[in-house]
Every structure is written in structure tokens, then in C-alpha cells.
């Protein structure tokens, strides 16, 4: 019986020739990640451990991104705790305001995640790096603490679901529509404890940013990780961003999957997840009612990359956001911000009546920078639309692509670019 991509990476990091689904293993870690919410808890736990310091100061990434620039005194104390820990332990990859970005956009850009790595992060969207052919998964703060101290983590080897992608997405259809379609199909626990392996000739028709978005939301289907094969595009990305050696693992031909699905990318339509679960999806054509909205958010670890900025700008150019609607654009990293500035995208956003923020997770998790009042509705390119996620428990979040979000900002109601004049 052969192994999946994920199983091969885990076997190699556990010093084993082979592993099988359900096996408990201890694996060496290439990177341990934390942010300003999860790291303070991890630091407190690590202090209880009888260890001298971190296992490898080059293999830890600390990215204050959720509530920075500090939103209040308590957040400032958390960030101070992370900063002092980073300096005390001489952590190479600590990113201060001015260098930081939203962690899952920042780390690949900084070349810290490459194919074949095993990465844990105390943030559920750590699964993003599967886009580059790494095994990466979200954990809690105690696992992060143990990872920082020992360089190891225990895993139960996951079984897998195979998504065979074919065809080419139509105009205005992106990675976000692909993953929302899949979550709508299998449900928010459809891949519980499992790997989601995205393969097939259709992968070549997805940009790297599309793939990051797809892998990023594997957790919204309950997945342990999402992973793509490593092709020329992924190799070009890694060569551009990283000096680190990478290892390509391919699934065996006789690898076993719990389920297999074929997704025809050319048949997908702009897809929107209705409140209050990412699985409540409808295509734009299936929405019969008129849904007026109060706010649009374009950004996050899911959709704050340069492709996303370009798509939003393409829609907003020469147009204006609807009267009374707040449109908040958040480039995910300083590099994305700078690129968007050089390409004139920020000018387009501002002229369209949108605001542009420094990188932050802020509104996605209802932290700050765009909290919703009772009864308000938001179309957001973020990843969760749970009750109260972006503010009041009686507010509503509609998850969508940057194209749909930007068009909805112009229309003042859920729309898509093909419906704008």
C-alpha cells in the first residue's frame, strides 16, 4: 500500500521508511510559528518546562499580527511579552510592526516555508503552506511551547481525501471559489482529521496565490492539512523567495484515499458562503434575494495577497463604493502593500472610496478595524462567518472572493463583476 504526499513527508521527518494512517509518530519540525494571541500562552507554558531555551532560534517564527499595531493596553502587554521573549532567545524570525505582515502571507514571502517541510503553528490557518508542498498544520499554544522547546511534535498520521482538479477557471473565478465550493460540497467537518490533497492537471491553471487561498481554508473543512504537488510554478516561487533547500514528495500511485472527488474548475461560478458556516454556499446565480450590505473587507491570510489586490483594483477602477458602505482593504504584508502602491492599486482603492489599512488580522476575528454593529452585514474575503466572528452576535458575514467583494462594495449588495455596468 502506497503513501500520500503528507504521509511521505511525515515518515521522512519521523525517521521511518513508511507510515500508515492512524499511526502515532513523533516528527522533527522545520518551523514553529506563533502570533500575538497564541504566543504569550505558549511562552508561559514553556517557562514551566525544564529546558534552557528554544531548540533552534532560526526555526521559530514569531509574528504579532492579530491585534497590532497594538489595539489596546492588554494587547500591547501581549506584544511586549512576545517581543521580550524573542530578544531574550535571539529569535531570528521575529517580525516587528514595519516588517510584519499577516503570518501566513508573510512566511512564504520571506522564504521560511518550502516543499517537504513539517511546520506547526499556533494558528489554525497554518495549513496555508501546503500550497508549496509542505506539511503544515495548526496547533494550540502548549504544542507550540513543546515545539519551541524540543523541535518535535506528535502526530497521528492522517488518511486523505483526493481532489482531482481539472479544467481552467473562468474569468472572475479564483481559488476562493474553488475552496468555498469544496467546503460547500463536503461540509465543515467533511475532512475532519484528514489531509486534503489537491492534484490533477487543473492545478497548473491556478496561480500560487490561488493555491495559498485553497490550502489556507482546508481547516474550514476540518482538515488537518491541505497540500498541493510541487510543479514548476511552485519551484519558481520558492527560488524567488528562499535560499533553503526543498524536497519534493509525490504520492505513490497506489496511495490509498478515503474518498476521491473530481472538480471541474471551468464549471465553477463565483461562490458565496452565507451566515453562519463556511459550508452554507451558494453560487452567485443561486442567490435570488437582494442582500444589502453595510461593509466589505478585502484582506486576511486567505485573500490579502497581490493577486487579490489586483483583482479588487480591477473591479474598483473608475468606480465608487456605494454611498454609506464602508470598504476596508488590507494588504497582507508590507511587500504586498508596497507592490500595490507601485502598481497604483492603492490610489484606485482610495479614489473608489475605500480605506487602506496596515497589515493586520483585525476585522477577520472581530478584533478591531471594522467591527460590525447589531444587524449589520459584511461581504468579506476572510475565512470564517461564525456567529459573532466580526462583531455583534446579530451581525452577518458573507464569505466571498476579492472579485465578488469588490463588486458588492460598488453595488451596495451582494453582486459580482459581471453584473456591474
Amino acid at each position, binding site marked *: 500500500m502506497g503513501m500520500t504526499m503528507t504521509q511521505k513527508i511525515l515518515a521522512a521527518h519521523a525517521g521511518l521508511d513508511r507510515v500508515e494512517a492512524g499511526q*502515532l509518530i513523533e516528527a522533527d519540525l522545520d518551523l514553529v510559528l506563533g502570533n500575538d*494571541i*497564541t504566543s*504569550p*500562552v505558549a511562552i*508561559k*507554558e514553556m517557562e*514551566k*518546562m*525544564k529546558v534552557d531555551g528554544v531548540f533552534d532560534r532560526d526555526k521559530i517564527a514569531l509574528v504579532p499580527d*492579530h*491585534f497590532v499595531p497594538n*489595539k*489596546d493596553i*492588554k*494587547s500591547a502587554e*501581549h506584544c511586549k511579552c512576545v517581543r521580550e521573549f524573542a530578544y531574550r532567545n535571539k529569535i531570528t524570525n521575529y517580525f516587528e510592526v514595519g516588517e510584519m505582515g499577516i503570518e501566513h502571507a508573510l512566511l512564504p514571502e520571506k522564504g521560511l516555508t518550502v516543499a517537504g517541510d513539517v511546520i506547526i*503553528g*499556533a*494558528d*489554525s490557518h*497554518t495549513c496555508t503552506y501546503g500550497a508549496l508542498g509542505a506539511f503544515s498544520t*495548526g*496547533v*494550540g*499554544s*502548549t*504544542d507550540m*511551547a*513543546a515545539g519551541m*522547546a*524540543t523541535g518535535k511534535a*506528535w502526530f497521528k498520521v492522517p488518511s486523505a481525501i483526493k481532489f482531482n482538479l481539472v479544467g481552467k477557471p473562468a474569468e472572475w473565478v479564483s481559488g476562493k471559489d474553488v475552496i468555498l465550493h469544496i467546503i460547500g460540497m463536503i461540509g*465543515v*467537518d467533511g475532512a*475532519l*482529521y484528514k489531509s486534503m490533497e489537491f492534484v490533477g492537471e487543473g492545478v497548473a491553471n491556478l496561480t500560487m496565490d490561488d493555491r495559498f487561498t485553497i490550502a489556507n481554508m482546508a*481547516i474550514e473543512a*476540518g482538515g*488537518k492539512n491541505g497540500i498541493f504537488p510541487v510543479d514548476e510554478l511552485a519551484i519558481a516561487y520558492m527560488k524567488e523567495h528562499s535560499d533553503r533547500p526543498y524536497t519534493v514528495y509525490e504520492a505513490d500511485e497506489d496511495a490509498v484515499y478515503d474518498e476521491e472527488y473530481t472538480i471541474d474548475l471551468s464549471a465553477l461560478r463565483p461562490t458565496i458562503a452565507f451566515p453562519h*458556516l463556511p459550508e452554507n454556499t451558494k453560487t452567485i446565480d443561486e442567490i435570488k434575494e437582494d442582500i444589502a450590505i453595510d461593509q466589505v473587507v478585502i484582506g486576511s491570510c486567505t485573500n490579502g495577497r497581490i493577486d487579490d489586490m489586483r483583482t479588487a483594483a480591477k473591479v474598483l477602477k473608475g468606480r465608487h463604493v456605494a454611498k454609506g458602505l464602508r470598504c476596508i482593504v488590507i494588504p497582507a504584508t508590507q511587500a504586498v502593500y508596497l507592490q500595490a502602491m507601485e502598481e497604483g492599486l492603492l490610489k484606485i482603492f482610495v479614489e473608489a472610496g475605500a480605506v487602506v489599512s496596515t497589515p493586520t488580522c483585525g476585522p477577520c*476575528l*472581530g*478584533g478591531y478595524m471594522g467591527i460590525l454593529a447589531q444587524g449589520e452585514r459584511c461581504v468579506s474575503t476572510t475565512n*470564517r462567518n*461564525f*456567529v*459573532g*466572528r466580526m462583531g455583534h*452576535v446579530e451581525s452577518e458575514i458573507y464569505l466571498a472572493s476579492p472579485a465578488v467583494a469588490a463588486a458588492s462594495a460598488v453595488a451596495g449588495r451582494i453582486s459580482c463583476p459581471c453584473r456591474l455596468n
Partner: protein
Amino acid sequence: MKAAKGTVFKYGDNVDTDVIIPARYLNSSDPAELAAHCMEDIDSGFVGKVQKGDIIVATKNFGCGSSREHAPIAIKAAGVSCVIAETFARIFYRNAINIGLPIVECPEAAAEIDAGDTVEVNFDTGVITDVTKGTTYQGQAFPEFMQKIIAAEGLVNYINHGK
């Protein structure tokens, strides 16, 4: 290992970590402060009613969403002695074990136990007893590896004791 006994708070599918502990309170990591807002966005009366030892029962995918360890910390600090569910989201499952919050997967118990029932859980055997209804259920036992972490009362002690 000890047993749990308490009154049941019952919830449905996909109880996410945002309703267990909303992110607006994540500027704190103090267990008591987190406990004061536990379950606030799904059951605003929970904190006022919960007694030490009480038990949460839910159906599938309990704890989905964010990796925030603040969620099991808030539940534990609120006094809850055990969470029983049909299934748990995987990060919550790890976190609960790592911080020493007992959790048991048992689809039958999750389906049949009602809010307000008095329930006992024996952690050694995995047997769940609904004292109110007079029914018993066999919950899934932890693999030996996880039992060791639980016996050490969490991952930190497990590591400190040299495994």
C-alpha cells in the same frame, strides 16, 4: 483516574471556538478572565448557571475554527469537568488533552443525553452514565500515548517527566 459528575449543558453541531470564547476577549490570557466570558455568544446564561463539575455535551465537530487554546482553558476554568461530543475538531482535541481538560467522543451519548441530566463519566473505563435517564454508554478510550499525557496532567508535565 478520577471520575466526573455534574449537570449537563447541551449544544448542537459545530460549536466553534469563536462562540466558546469570542476574540474580543483574547487580549487576555488569564483563565479566570476567559472563564467569565465562556460560551457567551452561544449561551449568554452559561456563566451564571454553570457549577463546578458540570458537563458539556454537544453533537458533531465541537471546537471547530480557531486554534486558540483559550477555548479549552475557558471551559476548564469555568468549572466544567468533561466535554462529551459526537466528534471534536482536531485542534481543540489536541489542546484539551494538552491542558488536561477531559473530553470523550461518544455519538450515542451525544445524541441521547439532554440538558439538565445528571451525568457521570469514568475516565478509566470511558463509561458514561446518565443518572437521570438510567442509561449507560461506552465512550471511546484514548490511545495509550495520550493516556500518558493525560495522566501527567498535560503535555508540559509529560515533557518534564522525561516521558
